[in-house]
Structure formats: C-alpha cells, structure tokens
C-alpha cells in the first residue's frame, strides 16, 4: 500500500478533527439526556426520547436537510450564529454538528443503559452520608457508569467517523473543508482511476474502526474491574 496523497491525508485529519469535536461536545449533553430519560419523570419525556432517537430512524439525507433548513445560511439559528461569527454551512464545524447529531442517539442509549443499571439505593446511601445531588452524581453515579460512558463515547466517535448522508447534504463535499473519509471515498469512486485512493481510505477506515473497537473493549474491561469491587 502506497503512502497517502495530500488530498487523502486531508480527509483523514479532517475526519479525526470533526469526530473528536463532535464527540467531546455532545458527550455532556448525552449524559444529561440519558440521566433525564433514565431517572426523571417529567412532562415531555416521551417527546424528548423521540427527538433524541429521530436521527437513528430518519434517512440521514433528511436529517442533513433539516440541519440545512435550521442551521444553514437562510435558517433562523444559522443566521443568528453567523452574526456571532460561527458559520456552520459548508464548513467543517457543520460537519462536526452533523456527526454529533447522528452519533447522539447511540451515545445516549449506551449511557442510559448504564445509568439504569446503577442501584439507586447506593445514591440514597450517599445522600444519608451528606452528599448533595451534584456530589452524588460525581462521586457515585459517574464512576459506576464509566463502562457505559466509555462505550457510548467510542460508539459515538465511530459513528461520527463514518457519517456520510447527513454530512454531504448539510455541508457538501469540499476537499479540505468538509470532505471527510466517507465523502472522499465517494468522490474518488466517481472519477476514473480513483479506485486505488479509495481503497487506501477504505483500509484506513477499517483500521480506525477496529482500533476503536479494541480500545473500547479493553477500556470497558478496565472500568468494569474498577467498579466490580474485588
């Protein structure tokens, strides 16, 4: 396998940048949403659950189109953000938003499952020892959901790395700007003689995915040992 060309390198580094930002920024929100769905009873809970899961069920192209309507140059939120100096449409930040939205349901599901597995009686015990809700979350809940948190993060990251439909609809396929690995593979396959470049990127994709999987396995094992209490 030959070395990567500059355009391919660009796609790889851009994908890593987009996915990292998408994962880091959506993680706190995913924890909050997972906690709300797992533990709180409030009006509109079913609605929230639906909205969170929508990107998982809708065609990605539709999600991308909705993002374009809302965050695009003519969308209301998009205009507001633009006046603050943040352009999302046809920009790598938009690719990060699309990746975050698409990965969000997967993160929430993994984290929610782990929160539901935490024995609420342990949190009660912490309360009787003087810990406020926030302290209970930091010192009891968070350490106990660490395996789910790690799994959710890696799942979200992997999803972000592979996102194609919503990204290409929302931010198009501009080399160096919004061309992530999947978009680049797609572009290479559209031109004659692009197969070898596409094959190189496919290999990189497989390696990255496998790496993420192995990392999540060993991290989950480490966290489970810590929580297991032996």
């Amino acid at each position, binding site marked *: 396998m030959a070395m990567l060309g500059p355009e391919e390198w660009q796609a790889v580094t851009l994908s890593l940048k987009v996915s990292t930002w998408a994962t880091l920024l959506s993680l706190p929100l995913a924890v909050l949403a997972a906690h709300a769905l797992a533990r709180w009873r409030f009006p509109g809970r079913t609605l929230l659950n639906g909205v969170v899961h929508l990107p998982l069920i809708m065609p990605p192209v539709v999600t991308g189109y909705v993002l374009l309507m809302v965050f695009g140059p003519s969308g209301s939120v998009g205009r507001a953000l633009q006046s603050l100096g943040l352009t999302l449409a046809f920009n790598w930040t938009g690719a990060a938003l699309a990746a975050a939205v698409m990965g969000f349901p997967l993160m929430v599901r993994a984290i929610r499952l782990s929160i539901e597995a935490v024995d609420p*009686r342990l949190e009660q015990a912490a*309360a*009787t*020892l*003087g810990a406020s*809700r926030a302290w209970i979350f930091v010192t009891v809940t968070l350490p106990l959901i660490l395996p789910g948190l790690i799994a959710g993060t890696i799942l979200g990251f992997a999803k972000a790395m592979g996102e194609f439909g919503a990204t290409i609809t929302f931010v198009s396929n501009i080399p160096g700007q919004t061309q992530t690995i999947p978009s680049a593979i797609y572009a290479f396959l559209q031109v004659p003689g692009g197969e070898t470049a596409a094959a190189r990127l496919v290999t990189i994709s497989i390696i990255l995915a496998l790496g993420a999987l192995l990392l999540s396995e060993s991290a989950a094992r480490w966290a489970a040992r810590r*929580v297991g209490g032996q």
Partner: protein
Amino acid sequence: MKLAVEMHQPMGALMLDVAFSAPPGVTVLFGRSGSGKTTVVNAVAGLVKPVRGRISLGDQVLQDSGQGIWLPPHRRRLGYVFQDARLFPHLSVHQNLVYGRRFAPRGSAAEPEARVIEMLGIGPLLQRRPGALSGGERQRVALGRALLSAPRAILADEPLAALDEARKAEILPYFERLRDEVAIPILYVTHSAAEVARLATTVVVLQDGRVVRQGTAAEVLSDPSVTPLGARAAGAVLLGTVVAHHEDGLCELDAHGVRLFLPGTVHPVGTALRLRVAAQEVILSRARPEGLSALNILPGTVEQIRSGEGPGALVSIRTQAGTVLARITRRSAAALDLNVGTECHAVIKSVAIAPEDVGG
C-alpha cells in the same frame, strides 16, 4: 438530645400513624414485617416524605408539614445503616469509611477514625474492596461509615436480618458498645426479640401502622398483652451481674439478690448482662419443686394471665429477679388454679437460655 417523631402516611391499605420519641441510647422499633417500621426510619432519614408529620432531633426540625419545612436527606446528618450495607463498590473500604467526612461541617464532633476502626475491628480490611468482604465485615464497615460521617443520630434498619446466626453474634456486640460508648440516639429496627432484649434502652412496638406500646425492654417484653410476633416468640428480659464463673462451666449471676445460673459466657465478673428467657422454656409450679434438674427456681406471684381461643396461655410472674413470662396451656393454668396474685415458682433450665439471648 432526643429524636421526636410524629407522622401520618398511607401505606398500601394501611394508614401509618405513629408518634414516639427516642432518647439517647437504643430505641428499637419492634414489630413484624409490614408493620411500617422501615417507612418510619426512611421518613426520619428523609428518604420518604410523609404527607403529614413533624420530626425533630434536639432543637433541629427535620420536617414540619404544618410549616412546610422539609430538610433533604443530605442535610439531616443522620448515619443510616441499611440491611444490605450498600457500600460503594468502586471505592476501597477506607474510601467508603471516610466518604461522609468531607460533607460534615467543620469542627463537628465525629468519632476519631482510629477509634472507630479499632472498635469495629476493621483495620485489616482497609485496602480491600467491598466485593471481597463477607456479609458481617460489610455490615461492620457500613456501621463505621455511618459513624464517621459525624451523625447526630444513627438509624439502623434490620442491620442483622441478612446475616446468619454466626455473623449476627459477630455484629451484635458492636451495637452494644455503640449504645454504651456513643452519646447519640440510635433508632434500630428489628423483628427479632433477641435483638430487642440485648440492645433496647427503649422499645416502641409497632402493629399495623400504629404504636401499641412504648417502654423499657424489661417492661414491654414481660407484658403478656404485647406480643407483636405471637406468643411463641414471647420472652421476658432479666438483668443481672456476673458474680462468678464455676469450674463446671456454669456462670453465676446476681439478679436483684437472686442467684441465676446459665451456661458459661465470655463476659468477665462484674459485667452487667441482659438475658432473655423464652416464655416457652419456663415451667410453673405451685409448690417449690424438689429433686428437679433445673437450676433456676424463682418464687413469685402471678401478675397477669392472657389467653385467647387457642390452647395456650401467657402468664407473667413477678419475681425478685424481675418479671418472667411463661407460656403454658390453658388446661395447666386451670389445673394449677392460677389467678392474678397466686403464688407460684417459675422454673428455668440453665441450658434453655440461648447464647444469642445473653448480652452485655
């Protein structure tokens, strides 16, 4: 400092409606399962919010539904020992022990860590994880964790119920030490008469969501009309001091001037002991029996006789050593012509006093 509880709370088809106060020492909430004991303790801890109630500890009001006061659990500073220990699995024993310390106000009178660790005998466990502890060890650590959070009272909800007899015998002495060495109220829930007999300074008997009796352990357990667990589990408490250990393995006690003999205990001479005498192990005799193998024969007079539809009767006999309960048949009561005021002798076999019923 006194814990005062008054609360109303629907509990299934039942209305929990209780009022009592717990002075320093151990106040035992005693009753069968489903009588509402755990709900009362959870309300004191703030884990349950009664629809109406007033709960105060000393001059601090924990809840007053009339004035809309309700302190959340983390601001009540009560050490809660749960039936299932509830140690944090991701923390070591030592981290569990000191968990509550960072939340205690500065300068609050916590027991010194070294003393608690020594008292509970958990020094060798400090670096372990809760998953590697036995049931009895877990419960000792849970007790230590509650104590080190500088609590203003201790709550214990059937802390021994999940343990086997050997483990119970291991933990009970720690609660006895706690009662005698720590000057805060302890509210202790149990459905075990043995635990009441050994621990209680005050007993509050709960039945179907109501307080049916409150008094000292000796008073309440010797009353034949109060048998929350049924006559089969009845038994009075005698108080005595160890005066001698005999070579044949017997231990001699002085109970208000009466000599009692029981199988040897580890308690040194001079120890004040409580012993529970199961009502079914007591034989009554009008004349002082002669040529009998039983070593303890206590003369007294019948104080109360209680019988229902069944064949049994529960008789309380006031003796110099204290009041003894005897569970006999109605037929025997008639044959002996037992009435209130009748003089008779209560006969207690030494070996009938179970080791778990004797405590310091």
